[in-house]
């Protein structure tokens, strides 16, 4: 895996890239990127995995144009063009799933498929959701997982100062994108039918950030999409059910033959 910066529309974007195979663009969630996680390591056996940090997050710049989720989506499309990638499997988790969907309704020209893991971005009236901005760090971490031993392990690691700074920056960037309207774009849902590449929607059955009913809702809005729900799993199937998730994704991309 190598790390580099690429400049998109005047914004330095931090990028991790590793593996061989068809390109797979990984879009991180609100907790931030810049970590070559076990899921990325495994996917790099079959794919050329490209994992940028969004503008405003981690080691990437916070450009003057960083106002809303659309800016991040256009930045992703510019990034695909700048890297001259085609036939891309675009995968986004949580906030990153929202970014991926926003990018895909704008253009699927460079995409082979779309995978959304517990994506934010839509709002179902009457379905209660937690106020994640009122959670303490510990509450936010505990809510990520169904298996609390994973939360315990994560909480046991004391972040160094650089990591603390990145977390704070990520919180700021997340608030900029998701504070109001809270975690959704009222104009996204009406254009989801434009997504014309094979799409997989993955969800943890015990997701405490975004309840599982959203999985079917997304599935119903994106033509021909598949929905998979992982039992005994929280908001991050890619870490809590890493092997099962990666197998699912590998099978999906193999099945669509691209």
């Amino acid at each position, binding site marked *: 895996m190598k790390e580099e910066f690429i400049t998109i529309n005047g914004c330095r974007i931090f990028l991790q890239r590793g593996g061989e195979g068809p390109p797979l663009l990984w879009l991180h969630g609100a907790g931030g990127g810049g970590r070559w996680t076990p899921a990325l390591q495994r996917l790099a056996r079959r794919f050329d995995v490209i994992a940028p940090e969004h503008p405003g997050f981690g080691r990437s710049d916070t450009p003057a144009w960083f106002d809303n989720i659309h800016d991040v989506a256009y930045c992703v499309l510019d990034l695909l063009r700048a890297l001259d990638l085609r036939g891309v499997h675009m995968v986004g988790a949580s906030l990153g799933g929202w970014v991926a969907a926003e990018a895909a309704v704008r253009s699927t020209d460079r995409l082979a498929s779309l995978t959304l893991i517990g994506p934010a971005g839509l709002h179902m009236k009457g379905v209660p959701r937690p106020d994640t901005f*009122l959670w303490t760090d510990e509450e936010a971490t505990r809510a990520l997982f169904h298996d609390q031993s994973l939360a315990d392990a994560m909480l046991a690691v004391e972040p160094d100062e650089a990591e603390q*700074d990145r977390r704070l920056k990520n919180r*700021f960037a997340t*608030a900029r994108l998701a504070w109001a309207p809270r975690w959704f774009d009222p104009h996204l849902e009406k254009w989801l039918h434009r997504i014309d590449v094979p799409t997989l929607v993955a969800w943890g059955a015990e997701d405490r950030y975004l309840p599982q009913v959203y999985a079917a809702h997304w599935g119903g809005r994106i033509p021909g999409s598949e929905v998979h729900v992982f039992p005994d799993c929280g908001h991050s199937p890619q870490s809590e059910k890493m092997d099962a998730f990666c197998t699912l994704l590998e099978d999906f991309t193999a099945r669509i033959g691209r």
Partner: protein
Amino acid sequence: MRFFFFHLMPYAPLDPDYDKIHRSSWVTLPNDYYDPELGAELYNRYLDELEYAAELGFEGIGVNEHHQNAYGLMPCPNVFAGMLARRIPATAKIAILGRALPVLANPLSVAEEFAVLDNVTRGRIITGFVRGIGAEYHSLAVNPTESHARFHEAHDLIVQAWTKPGPFTFEGKYYHFPHVNLWPRVYQEPHPPIWIPSQGSRETIEFAAAPDRRYVYLQTAAPAATLFRTMQGYRDEALRQGYQSSPDQLGWSIKIYVAETDEAARREARPHIESFANKFLRMPQEMLLPPGYTSLASMKGLINSRKTITGGYRTMEQMLEQGTFICGSPQTVIELLAEYQRRGGFNLVMAGLHFGTLPHELTRKNLELFAREVMPALKGAVPGEVPRVAAA
């Protein structure tokens, strides 16, 4: 020294055990803790207290803005100013400190409301602009990362609406108006005074002290040591920008209780000031400091210090020691205020003579003793050479 009486209008009958179940008296405290019958009584009582202060000879009375909480029941300070405007003697001013500009939908309507009040009172209003505290961004679902930018743009819009001949076009990022054309125009020339209440951020001091503004900077909710530093910071900033600031550009918002003796004052004030600090001001860090409310660097400092109003139980003695509360006989209070003025160099005192659960009778007594015993003794007090401290 010039004196104003400031009311927060807390929901005093709040069940003090609410904090066994709920984290805060803000944002998410269920509103079935509020009893409209008691609330109706309370509003009328608090308005009586404000009117009484105006009669007792304070230069003015002050109201402010907070949303969805038990700490302060004035979501719409201009409504309160309107209720008071024609009830108080024509000698008294009304200070509205302040409107929380970024959390309001349309700042042009703030310019309009202030202009109406300015006309009706024939120029006896003082306006104030704030960003609102962090919890307000939760309560009104306004993005805290836009707080600074919205504040500055809304401020510019309001001041231009007051001072530029209309109609004109205002072209901002957040506020865009093809026709700004205020009816009525403001009464005071060039516009009503603007005061900036703040907890003391560097950016706010620079903003208020700028030579084309020279707004009154009002230090709120801070220990005396912070007060001395921010006052110094303002004077230094003025000098840096080429002018000498006046003590009338500097104010302190401070809770005060006066009784016949020091002992009586402490005994009478204790439960009520402690309820203010520990029940009404109770707020977890996530509420107080939403992401983006300050710069990254400031936020890091605030989180690291953790010496915020979210800490453990605060006793009256700690508050007296820190200088976040003044309490005692008239003579004690006179001496303390004179000493704080000597070291702070301010000339405006926004006296919080009601706080927490302080009952009506004690509030009246406090107002009377303060107006009759303390104010006359300090009327002619002006700051001399202020001992230098490191500026904020």
